[in-house]
């Protein structure tokens, strides 16, 4: 069934949106009109510049409200999301004991130039994040966190050495799409080395979605708001199902 929606301000289907951007124009009536016309050219109606601020160096910040006539039929929207249910740590350990009956080895790293351990640590470190223990704490996981700036080659070598079931990759820096390059490089190397189908490849980071991960050739991707429990449950269920086949 069709379900057509538009942005909501305070009246259904008023189409109100908030915009904020800078333009390389002076902070004057001329600049303001340029900003308004730009918004109209984006397809918006009723553009109203509510604030303009001089940013110096010939730039101006505009805050604006406008309404859109565009709408979306939510019944037509398809997204790829990780569909496995989320279990608590104890449940996951129990699930693995029952369905898989062995320890799972996970090798994780923040790869290539990226120096930020915050993502991989939040998921893997014993301590975890926001009241959820990390993968190292799970009884059924042998979780190895290699840290940041790990070369793809080193990550794959470690995974091969440990006969890993899962490779977990974090990418935090996304400037100039460096994360796409890094993730692609890893998966290409894994394919070249014949490792791609031997383990689960999972990536995560603030700019990563499950859909993007699938597109890049990974098994799953986790974005902002992901906890260790999401990743652990996915690993437990996916590997158990694989083994059952």
């Amino acid at each position, binding site marked *: 069934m069709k379900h057509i929606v538009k942005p909501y301000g305070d009246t259904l289907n008023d189409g109100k949106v908030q915009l*904020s*951007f*800078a333009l390389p124009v002076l902070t004057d009536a001329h600049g303001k009109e340029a900003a308004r016309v730009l918004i109209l050219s984006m397809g918006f109606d009723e553009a109203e510049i509510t604030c303009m*601020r001089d*940013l*110096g*160096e010939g*730039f101006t*910040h505009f805050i604006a409200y406008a309404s859109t006539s565009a709408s979306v039929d939510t019944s037509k929207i398809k997204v790829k999301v990780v569909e496995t249910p989320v279990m608590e740590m104890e449940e996951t350990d129990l699930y693995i004991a029952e369905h898989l009956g062995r320890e799972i080895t996970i090798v994780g790293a923040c790869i290539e*130039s*990226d*120096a*930020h*351990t*915050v993502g991989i*640590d939040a998921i893997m*470190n014993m*301590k975890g994040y*926001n009241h959820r223990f990390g993968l190292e704490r799970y009884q059924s996981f042998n979780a190895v966190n290699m*840290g940041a*700036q790990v070369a793809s080659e080193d990550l794959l070598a470690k995974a091969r050495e440990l006969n890993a079931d899962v490779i977990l990759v974090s990418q935090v*820096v*996304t*400037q*100039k799409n*460096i994360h796409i390059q890094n993730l692609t490089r890893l998966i290409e190397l894994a394919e070249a080395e014949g490792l791609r189908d031997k383990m689960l490849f999972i990536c995560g980071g*603030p700019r990563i979605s499950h859909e993007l991960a699938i597109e890049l050739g990974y098994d799953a991707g986790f974005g*902002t708001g992901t906890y260790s429990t999401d990743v652990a449950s996915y690993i437990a269920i996916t590997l158990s199902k694989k083994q059952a086949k």
Partner: protein
Amino acid sequence: MLKLDLDSNLVSRARAAATKISSDFDWLFNGYSSVTIERTVLRLMGIDGATEDGKPLPNLLVDQLQTAGALHKGAAIWVANAMHHRSCSAQEVADSVTRGELQLTALPLAEPGVLYDLLSALSEKMLGQIKAQKAQREGYFEKYGPRRKPAIYVIVATGNIYEDLTQARAAAREGADIIAVIRSTAQSLLDYVPYGATLVGFGGTYATQENFRIMRTGLDEVSEELGRYISLTNYASGLCMPEIAAMGALERLDLMLNDAMYGILFRDINPKRTLLDQYFARMINAFAGIEIQTGEDNYLTTSDAIEKAYTVTASQLLNESFALKSGVKPEKMGLGHAYEIDPEKENSFTYELAHAMLTRQLFPDAPVKYMPPTKFASGNIYKTHLMDAMFNFVGQLTGQGVQLLGMMTEAIHTPHLVDRSLAIENAEYIFRAVKDLGDSLQLSPDSFINRRANSVLQEATEFLEKVAAEGMFSAMAAGDFAEIKRPENGGKGLDGVFERDPDYFNPFMEQMKKELGL
């Protein structure tokens, strides 16, 4: 007046333990050197430039000496020897080596006295350049007045030094006092300093001497226009700590991120290498009048900010004690801390206030550096902006030296022009609104804030005493710092550390030690 009632006995015990820990490393500071220290010496002798494939000349020369097994005497002697034989400059010596025409160790060593005289004249000249930069900075502050407190510190990080300059000038006009050019991710692990102006970086812009020069020149122009001296900062950290410190001294950077232990704990750089490098790097900073800034915020982004608050205090005291050994004065120690407590925690602000006051009061003369919320910054830019306002409130109320402004888009991207502008507007509003509020407030003696500050200090003292008893390297190997195990002979860069020969000579270290009274 807002003031803590700190247990002075704990303060002296904690300082005594920190002093004991740092003085255990005299064998390292006086008996060893590293490849980057030797490259620093060459840079200070005036050697600059890179080969066509991008290898910096200081690296080329130090590699040649290391391969020949001759580095134990220090690089200075060999280059001075070649200068003496050929009656040419250090740069000309380097150029000959680059062309493959000169093996430094093939020339017979001249009389030591001759070489010492040559090096002494050269170091006098080069250190004179650094002194001139220091005098120019002091002249600017004299002319335009001192930096405000808290000073507004913002980052630029486009990857392109020219784009950075546009953003830095815009930020200065809006009220920024200090501009930090964030480095390209992974530069800390390069065992060389890239050369020339750079236009592409990831998550930041490469620290190069030319980039320093471009930014400093641009900021001098805007300083003169605004009648306010805009300070510049970068990172003397990673595997090239002293080289970058020297570049910063020559190009008049005003502050340098420089932590005695950060590289070991958070970048897995070898402990000996890091401590050795920071010793010389900080000496250069001290000599150049550069304010150092330490990275204690990292303890809180990787662990719970309440539970591990004491690690910040302990690290500050260690950084202070290592800095004193290099001749850094307290008024040039930007010891770090951060506003990183979970905003869902009840009374999170009260805890933050206690921690910020503790730092402020333990280091009354230091321009302490306060770092913004990052761990709990999210894609909800409105909430992050609000957290930044609370952070700014604590900063002004407790009189922090430097306020590193949070950006509402902290969790999303390196700051856009608008994000930085809104951050400055936020800080200026709060700073103005609560400017003298602290003068009217007072803590009750048995208040939570007093108790909390003393209990963090107590934990820090006990931790430092434990480390002093077992030795810092053992404590690091056992994972006592930041819950990360760092063995003495592990990590990156150990192969660049070597024992000095008895006739080792570093003319700059000698001269600076003398002038700093070390």
